[in-house]
C-alpha cells in the first residue's frame, strides 16, 4: 500500500517549550491510525503541526509532497480535514450552514447539496436539527456535526482530536461505529488522537504510543492492544 502521510523527524513546540522531539510515523491510504498517549504527551500538537497551526521542524509528506510550513487553509485545501479539540462548531450558524462551510473551499459547488443529503443519511439526527443554531446542539450532536462538516471537504485524510471527549459512553460507541462505517464507505483515511485507548485500538489498523513528545511504541493496533505494559497503563486491566 502507498503511504498517504509520512512524518519524519517532526519537532514542534510553543515558544521556548519544545513539545515534540522528532516523531516518525506514517499512515496508509484508506487506513485508520491512532496516536495514543496521556495528557500532555503531544498528541494534539502533532495534529496541529500537520495542519500548520504550530511552528514545526522535520518533514511532513502528504501524498509525497512536503506540506510543512504551509498555512492551515492551504493544508485544508489539499484535502486534510482537521476536527479540532472542542469540535470547532460555528455556534451562531445553523447546522446546515456549518455543513455548507465544510465545503466552502471546494470547486465543485454543484455537488455540495448532494453531499449534504448524504451526511443527513449518515447522521439522521443532524437532519432533524437542520435549521437549528449549532451552538444549541448537544455535545454528541456537535461532534457528529464536526465529523460531517469535515467530510463535506471530501477529504483525503481526516485528523480527529479526541472525538470521544466529554461524551456519554453510549454516544461514544455510536460515534465510533459511524467512524468505522465512514472509513469503509467514504474511503476516508483517518488519524485519530485518543485518550480512550480501548476504543481507538478497536477501530485502528495501526497504533503509535506517545510519551512526552516521543514515540515509544508502534505497530499493528492488535499487537499494541495485547502488550502487557500498554494494557496496564492505558487500558486499565
Amino acid at each position, binding site marked *: 500500500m502507498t503511504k498517504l502521510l509520512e512524518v519524519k523527524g517532526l519537532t514542534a513546540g510553543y515558544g521556548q517549550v519544545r513539545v515534540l522531539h522528532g516523531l516518525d510515523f506514517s499512515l496508509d491510504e484508506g487506513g485508520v491510525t491512532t496516536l495514543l498517549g496521556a495528557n500532555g504527551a503531544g498528541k494534539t500538537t502533532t495534529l496541529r503541526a500537520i495542519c500548520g497551526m504550530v511552528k514545526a521542524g522535520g518533514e511532513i509528506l502528504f501524498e509525497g509532497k512536503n506540506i510543512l510550513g504551509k498555512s492551515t487553509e492551504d493544508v485544508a485545501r489539499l484535502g486534510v480535514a482537521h476536527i479540532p479539540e472542542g469540535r470547532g462548531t460555528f455556534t*451562531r450558524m445553523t447546522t446546515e450552514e456549518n455543513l455548507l462551510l465544510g465545503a*466552502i473551499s471546494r470547486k465543485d459547488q454543484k455537488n455540495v447539496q448532494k453531499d449534504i443529503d448524504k451526511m443527513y443519511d449518515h447522521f439522521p439526527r443532524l437532519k432533524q436539527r437542520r435549521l437549528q*443554531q449549532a451552538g444549541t446542539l448537544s455535545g454528541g450532536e456537535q461532534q457528529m456535526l464536526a465529523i460531517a462538516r469535515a467530510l463535506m471537504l471530501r477529504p483525503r485524510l481526516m485528523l480527529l482530536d479526541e472525538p470521544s471527549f466529554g461524551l456519554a459512553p453510549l454516544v461514544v460507541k455510536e460515534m465510533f461505529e459511524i467512524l468505522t462505517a465512514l472509513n469503509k464507505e467514504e474511503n476516508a483515511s483517518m488519524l485519530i488522537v485518543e485518550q480512550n485507548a480501548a476504543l481507538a485500538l478497536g477501530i485502528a489498523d495501526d497504533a503509535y504510543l506517545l510519551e512526552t513528545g516521543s514515540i515509544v511504541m508502534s505497530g499493528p493496533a492488535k499487537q499494541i492492544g495485547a502488550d502487557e505494559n500498554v494494557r496496564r497503563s492505558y487500558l486499565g486491566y
Partner: protein
Amino acid sequence: MSTHEETVAHHDIGESPEGENRPIARPGGASASAGARRIIFLVLLAVALVLPALLKNFVVFQLTQTMVYAIAILGLNLLTGFNGQFSLGHSAFYAVGAYTAAIMMEHMGIGYVWTLPVAGVICFIIGFLFGLPALRLEGVYLALATFALAAATPQILKLSPLEHWTGGVQGIVITKPDAPFGLPLNQDQWLYYFTLIVGIILYICATNLVTSRTGRALMAIRDNPIAARSMGVNTSLYKASAFGLSAFYTGIAGALGAIIVQFVAPDSFTLTLSIGFLVGLVVGGVGWLPGALFGGAFLLFVPNIAEGVSKGLSGAVYGLLLIAIIYVMPSGLAGFVQAIVSKVRGK
C-alpha cells in the same frame, strides 16, 4: 467577546433536550417567513415614500440624517456583527467619506452623485489596508488600535499642509444640490429620496452578502477562526476585506452626511461619533441588519430628547435612557423583535 454573547444570550447554549425540534434560534428577521418579511418591507417602503409630503422640512432632514447614520451602522454591523471585529475608528472612515464628497464637489466641481462611489472606494482601500495590520489584533486590542485611528483623524484634518484642500479648522461649506429632472421636490425632500434609494441598494447588497458563501465565511471566522481556517477559509483575506467593506459603507454614509449637512469640519468626526455608531449598533442588535435603522434613529433623536428633558443634565438623561433601553432589550431591538415573533407564533 461580550457583544457576541449578547445576541445569543437568551438562547441557551449547550445541551438541548433530546428529540425536541427547536425553532430557528436567530435574532429577529430570520424567523419571520420570507413572505411576511416582504410585506413588512413594502409597508415600510410605502410609509417612507409618503412621509416627506406630510412632514416639515426640518423633520425630513432629520429622517435623512437617520438613514445616513443607519448606513454607517450597517457597515459597522458587517464588521462587528458578522465578522466579530471591533472598531472604535469608524468616525475616521465617515470623515474620509465626508471630506471626499466635500473636496470633489467644492474644489473639483464634480456632481454629488459621483462622490458616493469614490468615497466608498477610497474608504474600502483605507479600511482594507488598516485591516491588514489589525489582523494580528483581537478584541480589546483591536478596539485600542481603532481608537487611535479615531483620535488622530480630526487633528490630521486640521494639519496646515492639507489646509488648501480641507479648509483646516474652518472646514468646507457645500452647496446643497437641487432635485434633478425638474422634479417637484425641494432640496431636503430630494436628498431624502436620494438617501433612501442609496440606503435600500446598500441594504439589499448587505442582506445578499450575509446569506452568500462569502457571508458564511465571515460568520465562520467570527464564531471560530481556527475551525474556519481548518475548512480552508483564508481568514486574513476575509478579515481585511470585511474591514474594507465596512469602511466602504461608512464612507458612503459620510459622503451623504456631508451633502445633506452642507458642511464638513474636523470636530464633527471625533471619537464621540465612533462611540455613537457602536451604541447604535448595540441598541439595534448586533448581527441583525434591520436594526441599523433603529440605531440610526437612536443616535440622532435620543440626545435631542435628553436635551429636551434637561439642558444641564442632558448627558445623564441620555445615559439613563440608554441603560433603560439595554435593560428592556438586552440584545437590542433584534432580541425584542424575535421575542414578539416567537410569541405571535406560539399562539
